[in-house]
């Protein structure tokens, strides 16, 4: 047994990749339902949008690119679906250089499903470089960094932007990001203009932003694909987030097994070295 455990300590990492690769194929062949418990920080974001009255404005910032779309897209779809379902007016923007095409695709698809019209029910401002400067400028007037929208239509000529000047004219900002723009929104957005801000984050980033939730600088967090699945549960729109949950369960079981085996093997080999006089 001990020899087996010692061999496990020296296992080629490619066997681990293969094990996880094979494990995640199981739900691809035969999926199963995973119940999702909703956490308070996700519920707060949902309730914030749900409490808005028809015709109220929310500002959505989708600052991510294809490298994180697996986690971010489900959140974007769920929130946009909820907003259009509630007949809210939506202002969209992206501060990620590779985000504009994806945001346009998501907005166009969801808007078409809800029969919403560009320029009347929603507006996609597009992309501008240097997030901090753009956020500060939008706090003065959306027209400063974006005199025209993504398609080149002047903001003043759109009915959806009539009387809407800056962040004080929207109910709040929901930022979905896979990068450092979350910091820019906290510092230059909430810090400078003090508007309600919520974050949708990748799993990697989430743990670093909970202190802002506790301090009240943000009112909610959607953490990674699990958060997206929670949001989809609340909205009643099972999408990619929920679809990923069976895969996550299987992959996590395999990873946990490897962690347990490697720890047992580590302590067993340490004990043996100790007996031989070469202990740590």
């Amino acid at each position, binding site marked *: 047994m001990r020899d087996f455990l010692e061999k496990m300590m020296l296992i080629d990492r490619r066997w681990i990749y293969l094990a996880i690769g094979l494990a995640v194929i199981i739900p*691809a062949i035969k999926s199963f339902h995973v119940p999702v418990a909703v956490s308070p920080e996700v519920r707060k974001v949902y309730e914030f949008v749900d409490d808005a009255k028809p015709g109220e404005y929310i500002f959505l910032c989708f600052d991510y690119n294809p490298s994180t779309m697996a986690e971010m897209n489900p959140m974007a779809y769920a929130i946009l679906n909820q907003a259009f379902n509630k007949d809210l007016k939506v202002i969209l923007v992206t501060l990620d250089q*590779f985000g504009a095409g994806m945001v346009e695709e998501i907005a166009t698809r969801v808007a078409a499903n809800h029969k919403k019209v560009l320029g009347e029910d929603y507006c996609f401002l597009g*992309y501008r470089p240097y997030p901090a400067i753009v956020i500060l400028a939008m706090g003065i007037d959306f027209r400063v960094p974006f005199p025209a929208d993504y398609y080149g239509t002047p903001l003043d000529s759109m009915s959806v932007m009539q009387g809407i000047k800056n962040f004080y004219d929207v109910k709040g900002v929901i930022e979905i990001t896979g990068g450092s723009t979350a910091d820019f929104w906290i510092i230059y957005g909430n*810090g400078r203009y003090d508007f309600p801000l919520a974050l949708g984050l*990748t*799993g990697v980033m989430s743990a670093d932003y909970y202190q802002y939730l506790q*301090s009240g600088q943000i009112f909610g967090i959607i953490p990674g694909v699990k958060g997206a699945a929670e949001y989809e549960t609340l909205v009643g729109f099972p999408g990619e987030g929920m679809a990923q949950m069976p895969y996550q369960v299987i992959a*996590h079981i395999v990873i946990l097994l490897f962690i347990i085996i490697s720890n047992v093997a580590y302590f067993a080999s340490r004990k043996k070295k100790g007996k031989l006089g070469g202990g740590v």
Partner: protein
Amino acid sequence: MTTGQLILNGIAAFLTLCIFSFLYKDNPFYKFAERLVAGVATGYWTILLYHTNFTDKVIEPIFINGQYHYIIPAVLGIMMWTRFSRKWSWISRYPIAFYIGIGSGVSITVYLYTYLFKQLQATISTPLTLDLAGLNVLIIVIAVLSALIYFFFSSAHKGIFNVASRFGIYVIMIGFGAGFGLTVMGRVALLVQRIIFLRDYIVALFGG
């Protein structure tokens, strides 16, 4: 799925497998896909910056709208390019100084407010009460102080200081553990999204 979509998704599936092949070992297929991504991204961003920055911040204001004050930032931008000449590189210090000056002025107050004052306020101003919320606040205060003590090297970690320092390292490890768990979830999400994409493509291709 139309024939055009099948071809495009076929290219995407091929490139996905090229990237996955690196898990076995480095190979020409991986190198091709990696360089293709880097090349496309660079080309895309260059053109994007031209249209979102150069066109509407330099060409249109100065040459079309006659807003000649835009010449000042344009000249400052051109001065940055003197970095490429040893003889003239000193000129680039002026726009850099300008940039750092503005950046510092704008950032220092909001950074202090966001990262220091608001965080300190949240840690110390919440009242201690005899319920779960109060216990939560107590844990936060003790955890923050213990973690800070772990990094305080100006006095020896002995006695109560040692106890707090030991507790601090456990607090830090819990933080790292939460980060690791969420990172695993994020990485698995990336894998799963590609697996679902490949499955859907195979189903579309063979009509399974």
